[in-house]
């Protein structure tokens, strides 16, 4: 059962990463305009940014 000592922290760490990523996305305003984001993906960035 010593394998649990590795597996549990790994599982928690991965879950925690997901949580952190979600909170970051929320904070940086990525959930503010859900409708616009769905359309935005269809358009290319201007060339000078590529």
């Amino acid at each position, binding site marked *: 059962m010593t394998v649990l000592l590795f597996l549990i922290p790994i599982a928690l760490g991965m879950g925690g990463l997901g949580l952190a990523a979600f909170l970051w996305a*929320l904070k940086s305003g990525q959930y503010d305009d859900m409708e616009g984001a769905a*359309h*935005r993906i269809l358009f290319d960035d*201007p060339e000078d940014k590529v």
Partner: protein
Amino acid sequence: MNALPQAGEALDLASGTLSCRHCGAPFRGSGEFCCSGCTAAFHLVQSLGLGRYYAQRTTDPAQPLLRPEEAETELDLSAWVRDVGKGEKEITLMVEGLQCGACIWLIEQTLLKQPGVTMARVALSTRRLTFRWRPSETAPEGLVHLVSRLGYRLVPCDPARLAAMADKESRQLLIAMAVAGFAAGNIMLMSVSVWSGADQATTDLLHWISALIAIPAVAFAGRPFFGSALSALRAGRTNMDVPISLAVILAPSISLFETFRSGPHAYFDSAVTLLFFLLIGRYLDRRARGRAHETAARLLALNAVAATVVDADGTQRSLPPAQLQPGMTVLLAPGARVPADGTIATGASDLDLSPITGESAPQAAVAGAHVFAGTLNLTGPLTMRVDAVGDATLLADMVRLMEAAESRRGRFVRLADRVARRYAPVVHVVALLTFLGWWLGGGLPWADAVMIAVAVLIITCPCALALAVPVVQVVASQRLMRGGILLKSADALERITAIDHVVFDKTGTLTLGRLELQPGTDPALLKIAAGIAGSSRHPLARAVLRAMPDAPLLGGVVEHPGAGLEWRGRGGTWKLGSCAFTGTVEDGTTDHVLWLAGPSGERQRFQFADRLRPDAEAVVARLKAMEIGVEILSGDRPAPVEDLARRLGIGTWQARMLPADKVARLEALAKQGRKVLMVGDGINDAAALSSAHVSMAPASGTEITQSAADVVFQGDRLEAIPATILVARGADRLVRQNLLIALLYNLFAVPLAILGFVTPLIAAVAMSSSSLIVILNALRLGRATIGKRG
């Protein structure tokens, strides 16, 4: 959604009309564009290298693109500009005319290609444009003009006012939900290994880790419930959040104690999963309310257009209406809304008073006439002196009447709250009795007795109430939104369920509020009249043009505000306008009549009438079939009201009603115990809308009406009314079913919990399954009613 014809295939061979390469509107004549504004916009787009816009856009045929404006009005946006540091400034504007993703792209790219612009972002869901620039390199006025030349109308708005309504709380709930979800998932993972028979040492280890996750998670994610429960207790009441808080605090603390003793009864998983489910429900509920708020904010923001003030030295600047002072001189361009009450100083024009009076025929306005905030200048430029602003305007009077009516309207208690009020004390008493019974009567140690009481609390936790009701609400409001019906207040659906009487306003509600040419005119003369009318904003001129939309525009038309239009050509002077202007003998009916007078004695009378909404008759019949009473309250004269009532088969009607009369009538109906749905569109209906049990307004109505109404519906059809009633009733049925499911589940599970048979495994399974059942039941609303619309 239809793609517009692409450039090059714009010719419609069947009718010989062309569609404009920029706005897509049909027109007759030669060339590729319908007007010079579109020509300029098209070349602007091409010169910026953004021509792909035309290939990529999708437009809604029911919602034509705005025509680009050519005339540049002087603008001063300094009142709305914010400093964001780093030598940059920022402004937020409402965008009118957004259609699809390509519009976002076009606006953003156009702005970003200008020197000095550092950021430009359009939010499609809130229709707001925010951009930043370096003041040393560019000025916002020019940038705003650039975007308006593309065919979008920009209105500055105050983000502080909108931010006050922006949903901070729902964001906190979302964070709490994420934390609870994370904790629930991980603890559940460990619980599964405990249930599947881990040995004692492993079980203890897993319990300890669960405790480490659960306790901070509950402390953080439970705050929305603790706060509400505390304030309820402080006020000497109890609400649904009290048993929820008790369960999610007691369960982990007792489980921690149990973990110390290496006992089997650790409820960390149930407590955190419960919290997670409840937060989902709370978040959905919050979002439904937030969306209602946002709709209201959008309507209010549109109202806050800028006023152009002329200073003593002749310079012009633009100010928010709130900053106007009595004595200031304000410029009113044709098409502008009057920002304050005042007197006309110079100019002559026609004013659309329908927002205030409900009367659809415009009134002539000359120097010295009084004008009221909220009315619309139609034909000629005016300057006005401000007499009253803000709270002293007629508009503000209407708002006060509306607020007074609102405060008299009985406070509505939602079904979930009514049930919660009775349910919460019962849960507490049962849990307490269970504890006392096992401790004193059953002789168990107090810790075990508390354990069983906690199991009772967890089992009885009101998931059906806290989760199913918001899910039903969200599904119902999404279904309505697909049909163009916006719920503005969160409890509108529940209020509508009880409706047994509908009161309609006449002009603009049962009718379209849009004048249409009556048949029986000479087509040749109509064609000339339409050609002349094309250059005016006057509603009657617009109606002539609508009767023959492909008539070629005649150039060189002179508009005499308050009188009519004059055109020199084809054998002399043609006049289109009032009796007096065209030199015609009056025949008594001056309302809704235009005359055309030609150089060689041609005379044509154009009679206009307000048309019924296409399905008004069917909707009235349908409401009657649903055993709902129908009534008309109108501000108009008795004759047209009676005529309309007879045509629709409505027995009860009253004419010449002032706003206060309408409120009095609605309050009288309420005293008789009727639950009244008021439908109206004018400012004169706003107070009545607020005093009715529930109210609806068409999206074509005035902003103030839309902010007073609980529900706003789009489109020309009244079908939205029975459709909303049916959806509301369907939602109510589902909520009651869910309550029944919850009750049955409690009848079955609570005795088990009281007898102490519930283990952590049974608690977790029972709670999750009951939550899932009520959610699935709620989702039926979305499926069952699709297909048979309305």
